[in-house]
C-alpha cells in the first residue's frame, strides 16, 4: 500500500468513526446531564428508536428532513419527560421504567412502521439530510477531510457537547444541577428547586437521544428500519460511565467505541472474529465499575428520588 493509499484509508476510517460516534455521543452526553441531576435513564435505547421513527415519519410526510430532526428531538424529549415525571411523581423504579420504555418503543415503532409503509422490515426512502461542505476544513490536512462533509447533526453534536460542558462546569445552573446529583438534601437547604432542574435535564437528555435517532434515519441511512437503534442506547450508557460523567469524556468514549465499530466493520471482510472487538466497550464498563483500574465517580445520588419531608 502506498503512503497516499494508507492516508486515504486512515482518513476513511476516522471519518467513519466520526459518523458512527455521533448518535452515541449525542445520547451519551444527554445521559450525562440526566445522571448528573440524579436521574438514571435506562430507556435510551427506546428514545433513540422513537426518535429515528418520528424523524423518518415527519420527514416523509412533510418532505423536509429538518422537520424530521425536530420531530425526532420532540419524541425523545417526550419520552424523557414521561420518565422523569413518573419517577418523581409516582416514585416509579427508574430501572423498570427504562426497561418498559425500550420494550414499548420497539413495539410502537414497528406497528407504526407497518401502519405507514406497510412493510415490517423497513420504510420507504425518506428525505434525508445533505452533507455540508465547510470550505474552512478544506485547507487543513488530515483533520480537515475527517471533519468535513458530514451532515448537520454531526456538527450539532459537537456543539452540544461543548455547550453541555460549559453549562455543567461554568454556569450557576450547572453547579446547582451537579449538587442535586450529589446531595439533594444539601441542595434543597440552599433553596434550589430540585424537581424543576431534574425535569429540564432529563427532557433535554431525551431530546438529544431523539436527535441521535434522527441521525440514524435521516443521515446514516435515509429510511427507518425495524429496531434500528440496535443496542446503541446501551453503548451510549457505557460511554457515559466510561467518560466519568463528563461531556467531553462521554464524547471521547463515544469516539473510541465508534472507532472500534468502524474497525470491526472493515475487518469483517477479512474473516477475523470481530466479536471480540465489539465486546471491548462492555468489558471496559464492567472493569471501570469494579473500580479496579481507575476510579470513576458516579453522582452519589443518581437513581434515588429525593423525598421532600
Amino acid at each position, binding site marked *: 500500500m502506498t503512503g497516499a493509499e494508507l492516508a486515504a484509508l486512515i482518513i476513511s476510517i476516522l471519518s467513519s468513526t466520526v459518523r458512527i460516534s455521533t448518535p452515541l455521543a449525542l445520547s451519551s452526553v444527554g445521559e450525562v446531564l440526566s445522571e448528573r441531576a440524579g436521574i438514571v435513564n435506562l430507556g435510551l435505547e427506546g428514545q433513540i428508536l422513537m426518535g429515528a421513527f418520528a424523524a423518518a415519519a415527519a420527514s416523509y410526510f412533510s418532505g423536509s428532513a429538518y422537520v424530521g430532526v425536530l420531530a425526532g428531538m420532540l419524541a425523545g424529549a417526550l419520552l424523557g419527560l414521561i420518565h422523569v415525571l413518573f419517577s418523581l411523581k409516582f416514585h416509579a423504579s427508574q430501572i423498570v421504567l427504562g426497561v418498559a420504555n425500550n420494550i414499548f418503543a420497539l413495539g410502537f415503532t414497528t406497528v407504526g412502521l407497518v401502519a405507514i409503509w406497510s412493510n415490517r422490515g423497513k420504510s420507504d426512502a425518506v428525505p434525508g439530510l445533505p452533507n455540508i461542505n465547510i470550505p474552512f476544513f478544506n485547507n487543513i490536512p488530515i483533520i480537515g477531510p475527517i471533519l468535513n462533509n458530514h451532515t448537520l447533526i454531526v456538527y450539532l453534536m459537537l456543539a452540544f457537547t461543548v455547550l453541555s460542558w460549559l453549562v455543567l462546569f*461554568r*454556569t*450557576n*445552573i*450547572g*453547579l*446547582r444541577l*451537579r*449538587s442535586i446529583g*450529589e*446531595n439533594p*438534601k*444539601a*441542595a434543597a*437547604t*440552599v*433553596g*434550589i428547586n430540585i424537581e424543576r432542574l431534574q425535569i429540564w435535564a432529563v427532557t433535554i437528555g431525551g431530546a438529544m437521544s431523539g436527535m441521535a435517532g434522527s441521525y440514524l434515519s435521516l443521515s446514516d441511512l435515509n429510511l427507518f428500519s425495524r429496531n434500528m437503534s440496535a443496542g446503541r442506547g446501551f453503548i451510549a450508557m457505557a460511554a457515559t460511565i466510561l467518560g466519568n460523567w463528563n461531556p467531553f469524556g462521554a464524547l471521547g468514549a463515544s469516539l473510541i467505541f465508534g472507532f472500534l465499530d468502524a474497525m470491526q466493520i472493515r475487518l469483517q471482510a477479512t474473516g477475523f472474529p470481530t466479536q471480540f472487538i465489539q465486546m471491548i466497550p462492555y468489558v471496559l464498563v464492567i472493569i471501570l465499575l469494579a473500580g479496579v483500574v481507575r476510579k470513576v*465517580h458516579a453522582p*452519589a445520588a443518581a437513581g434515588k428520588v429525593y423525598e421532600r419531608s
Partner: protein
Amino acid sequence: MNSLPVLEITNITKAFPGVLANDHISFAIQQGEVHAILGENGAGKTTLMNIIYGLYQPDEGEIKISGKPVAIHTPADALKLGIGMVHQHFMLIDPLTVAENVVLGNEPTRMVFSLDRAVRITEELSRKFGLNVDPRARIEDIPVGVRQRVEILKALYRDASILILDEPTAVLTPLEVNELYDTIANLKAAGKTIIFITHKLNETMHISDRITILRDGKALQTLQTAETNPQELARLMVGREVVLRVNKTPCQRGRQVICLGDVKVHDNRGLEAVRGVSLQVCAGEIYGVAGIEGNGQTELIEAITGLRKMTGGKIEIDGKDLSNARPAELLEAGLGHVPEDRNTRGVVSQFSVAENLVLGYHKQQRFRNHQFINHSGIDAYSSGVVAAFDIKTTGIHTCIDTLSGGNAQKVVVGRVFSQSPKALVVAQPTRGVDVGATEYIHQQMLKMRDAGVAILLISSDLEEVRSLSDRIGVLYQGQIVAEKLSEEFTERELGLFMAGAAAAVDRKAWEELNNEYC
C-alpha cells in the same frame, strides 16, 4: 454597646402532642456576645432554635430583632433578618470545592459561574473572620473541623449577623474543638453574635459570655459566665446539689464472661467513635452502659456483635478471644444480641412471627431436616416462646408487622433469651415499647441474670439503666468515664457524667480508668 438586645425572646411557647417543649421562654441576647443555651437533652433547646430559624412556628410569644418585632415563617425569612444556623449534620456537596459550597444557591455572578470570584469571596470572608480554609479544596478531602468552618462561612456569606451553632462540638476531635473556640473568638471580634446550643458544661464555661439554662422547657436563669462555676450550672441544669467523683469498681460476682480490652472502633466517616473502652461483665450480673446517644454506643455494639471491625483492642467471650469474629461465630459461642433498632436490625417485617423467632438460630438441628426447614420443629418451639413471653399475636404464622411495637420487641427478646445464652448484649430493649411489655422485658432480663447470664445493657433511658444494672459505666465520647456499683451513683451524678462533666473534674483519674485489659 447597643442597649437594645439584638435578639429578644418573650414568652415563646411550643407544644407538641404530649409534651410542652417550650414553656413561656424569655431571655435576651446582647449584640456581639457569645451566648450559651445550656440544657440536658430534651430540655427544649433544639425546638427553640428551630423556632428562631423559622422551621417551627411558636404557639405563643414574640421575637424581636434589635427591638423590632419580627415574624419568621421560613429559614429564608431568618436569613433575611441576619440569622444563620449551622446544623449538627452538615449540608455540603462532597466533590465540590469549599468556595463552590459557600456560594451555592446564591452565586455571585449571573448565569456564568466564576470559580475565581467565589474563591476570592471565600478568601475575603476567611480572612475577615479568621476562619482558615482552602477555598479550592474539595469537601471530601478536608477534615470535619474544617467542614464546619465551611458551614459557618455559608452563613456569613449570606450576611448572617447572628449565628446559631447547634451542638457544634458533637462531631469534633478535642483538637478541632480548640480550633472552634478560636473561630468563635474571631467571629466575636468581628462583631457577630453567637448563640451556642450545648449540653456540655466545660465548653460552656470556656467559651461563653452569658449562659441561659433551659430545664424541662423553661428558661430558668441567665447568668454571666464569669460569675458562675460548673457546680452551680450543674445544680441549675438538674435541680439539686451534686458531688462529682470519678471511680471504678471491678467485677464482683461470678467469673468474667464478657471482657472488652481497650476496644477502638471507627464510625462510617472514618472517625474514632469508640476511643478505647475496657470493661468486664461477670456471670450473673447486669452491667449497664449509660450515655446519651451518639457517644459511640452503636459502634461499640456493632464491634462486640461482629457487625463492624474494630481498629484496635480485644474482645473475649467466656475466655475465648473473639475479636473481630463474624456474627455467626459469636452467636454460636453463646452471645445473644438484642439490637438497638428493632426495625432496621431486629426483625424482618415480611417474615412471620415464627420465622423471626428463629432468625440467627435457624441452622440448629431441631429446626432442620438436612437442608430443609423442619416446620414442625420451628412451630413447636415458636409456640413455646410465644407462650413463655406472653406475646400477643393471632398466630405464629402471622406476619410480624401486624404486631404492636411491644410485642415485636418481645419476639426479639424471646428469640434471644430462649437460646440459653452465656452472655447478652441488650441495646435499647424497651424503646418504642408500651409500659406492660417494658415491665415484662425487664423481668425477663432479671431472670436471665439470676440464672447466671452476663448481660451488657446499653440504653439511653437512665431509669432503665439504674433499675436493672448491678454496675453502671458511663459512656461519653467513646470512653467509659465513670464506673460504680449502681447504688453508688445518684441520678444527677449520672446525668452530669453523661453530659461530659467528668472531663472537667479529674482528667487523670479519667485516663487511668481505661488501663485495664482482659
